[in-house]
């Protein structure tokens, strides 16, 4: 193993300076890297659970270890360089190769041939070898100028990998940049104002998912909604995204977009990583044979069943592609479709409401995910909050009437002809997107007015959204209340009843 000693003077890897028979190859390597521009850079050692008892300590293997302890390293100030990546705590998710646990000492290096060692250089530079292999490579580097040279280059190349992109973009920058652009050149095909919140919220959630990376797809997320009584269930991040795909798909369906084909996961891992371009959605052929259920819950269940095996990155791509497509399509459709209905199976929403509703759901679930993984997540932009709060407030009289029909209300009601004044509640929403709404209590068609006010409720806009998302129990909602208690209770329950999975 003790090959020629390569010159130190060129500033590249010097080898075997100690010349002590190669018994401490890795240490030799660590001692090297004289002041020249490029220095050997030892990747952090991987965790090798269950085998540490058998192994002698590997110099520099731990984050805190010092090369000074390496045998024979006394003569030079040991050059310890940072690992190519910031040191991270042992990651339980990292897969450990159980086969790599044979006892190895530096004078019992496994017999790897030159070709194998050379082939390992890339993996070595990325700290993606087993411990045995790392050791063998590093011993080899002291002997082989060609490999040593390449090892240096590859290791430096690893340093370039992290430079890819800025991860921490201010989500508000998007609105500012787009606004600036549109100020310079107005859009000829603008996105309808009511689709703006959805566009922005989808972008924010996507940024959150990108920040989280692929380690969180199976993290538990608690979703809450109100189905007669508060419901709280745990899903995974991946399931939440599949849920968004499913219900967003109803809007796409109404826009005449081809239904997302539901296919078993591809075996090709490149696809699974979401790195290859997505397979185009199949046109036409799927709608007849696999028409998915139209109620949000059933449709979600169908998506969960089929997307069960899809990796999160692919789900994210599917969802994001669909959301971009929705915005694009509705921009072309224009204001003409604003009032047309979107079919949700057991109810309908006009497009302009459906898009705001999807924005609300996107924000709600993004917050659910962010809370689950302890990330901060802000509320939507002011103008978007206004639309979201406004939609919920406008839906309240209808929701109240539905609950009354179902016998779920407690306040007395009177028959009031459409258009005539009836008992009224003043809903005052404070904060971003707030305002005042006069709600008719007797029937959605009645006219609400201050003259017939029987109650007054004041809430913060975010709290109101939490209530309508089913995240707050009506009795516990932080609200200022004045007047007819039964009417107030009915209105708060009606607000909660707007939520669904």
């Amino acid at each position: 193993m003790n090959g020629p000693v390569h010159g130190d003077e060129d500033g590249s890897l010097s080898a075997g300076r100690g010349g002590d028979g190669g018994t401490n190859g890795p240490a030799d390597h660590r001692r090297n890297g004289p002041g020249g521009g490029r220095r050997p850079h030892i990747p952090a050692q991987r965790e090798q659970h269950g085998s540490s008892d058998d192994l002698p300590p590997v110099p520099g293997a731990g984050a805190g270890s010092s090369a000074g302890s390496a045998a024979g390293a006394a003569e030079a100030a040991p050059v310890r360089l940072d690992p190519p990546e910031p040191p991270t705590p042992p990651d339980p998710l990292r897969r450990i190769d159980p086969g790599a646990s044979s006892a190895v000492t530096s004078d019992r290096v496994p017999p790897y041939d030159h070709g194998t060692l050379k082939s390992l250089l890339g993996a070595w530079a990325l700290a993606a070898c087993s411990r045995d292999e790392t050791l063998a490579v590093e011993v080899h580097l002291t002997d082989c100028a060609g490999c040593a040279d390449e090892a240096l280059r590859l290791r430096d190349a690893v340093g370039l990998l992290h430079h890819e992109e800025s991860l921490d973009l201010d989500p508000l920058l998007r609105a500012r940049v787009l606004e600036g652009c549109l100020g310079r050149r107005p859009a000829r095909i603008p996105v309808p104002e009511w689709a703006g919140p959805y566009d922005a919220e989808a972008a924010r959630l996507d940024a959150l998912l990108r920040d989280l990376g692929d380690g969180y797809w199976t993290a538990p997320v608690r979703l809450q909604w109100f189905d007669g009584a508060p419901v709280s269930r745990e899903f995974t991040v991946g399931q939440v995204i599949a849920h968004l795909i499913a219900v967003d798909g109803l809007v796409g369906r109404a826009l005449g977009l081809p239904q997302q084909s539901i296919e078993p996961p591809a075996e090709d891992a490149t696809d699974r990583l979401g790195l290859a371009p997505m397979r185009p959605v199949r046109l036409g052929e799927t709608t007849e044979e696999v028409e998915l259920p139209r109620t949000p819950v059933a449709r979600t269940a169908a998506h969960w069943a089929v997307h069960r095996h899809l990796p999160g990155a692919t789900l994210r791509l599917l969802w994001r592609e669909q959301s971009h497509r929705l915005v694009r399509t509705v921009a072309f459709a224009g204001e003409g479709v604003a009032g047309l209905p979107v079919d949700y199976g057991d109810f309908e929403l006009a497009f302009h409401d459906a898009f705001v509703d999807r924005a609300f759901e996107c924000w709600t679930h993004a917050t659910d995910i962010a809370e689950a993984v302890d990330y901060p997540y802000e509320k939507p932009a002011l103008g978007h909050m206004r639309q979201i709060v406004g939609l919920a407030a406008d839906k309240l009289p209808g929701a109240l009437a539905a609950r009354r029909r179902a016998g779920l209300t407690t306040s007395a009601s009177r028959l009031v002809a459409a258009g005539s004044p009836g008992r009224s509640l003043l809903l005052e929403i404070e904060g971003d997107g707030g305002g005042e709404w006069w709600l008719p209590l007797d029937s959605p068609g009645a006219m609400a007015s201050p003259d017939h006010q029987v109650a007054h409720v004041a809430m913060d806009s975010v709290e109101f959204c939490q209530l309508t998302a089913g995240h707050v129990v009506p009795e516990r909602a932080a609200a200022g209340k004045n007047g007819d208690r039964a009417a107030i209770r009915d209105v708060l329950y009606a607000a909660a009843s707007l939520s669904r999975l």
Partner: protein
Amino acid sequence: MQQRLARGEEAALGELYDRYASLVHGLAHRVTDDDDAADQITREVFGYVWENPDAYEPRDGSLRSWIAALTQRHAVHRLRQYENRGRTNPDLLEARVREANTAARADFIVTSMPAPLRAALELAYRERLDYRAAAADLGVSEDEARRRLRLGLQLLSTAMEPDDPSGAPGERHPERGAR
């Protein structure tokens, strides 16, 4: 995308931002080391692309590399303004510009290398898998995983040789691009 921008589709502008904002902001930040400057450069770059979608010539390379080069130009321009105001010293500035150029070349190489190589690097670097786990994930042999990692890094290492003309075809150095 270019056609959609030219048509004045606001939705295309949003998609453009979603696809490239972190690249633009990241590059701008690396050159200027200043959040506000990076924000400002991001606005300028997207504003320019939106106003001049025809300035992009697909024959010269990908839209991404064009946007990256554009960002470099804006960022270096901004940095030279600082220099003129005496807010940074010339050596530091040149070092930063060189470093940013290398980073831009590296970004170009990573994004234009064959997908199987990129996938292998992603797994080993970002997901921190060892090459055996990466091989299993990719559904390839361990030999093949090692080969991909090595080849991917070899390609990437060409970014460090600025005078090597084969390093990054289609990539333009800001200095040259600015002429």
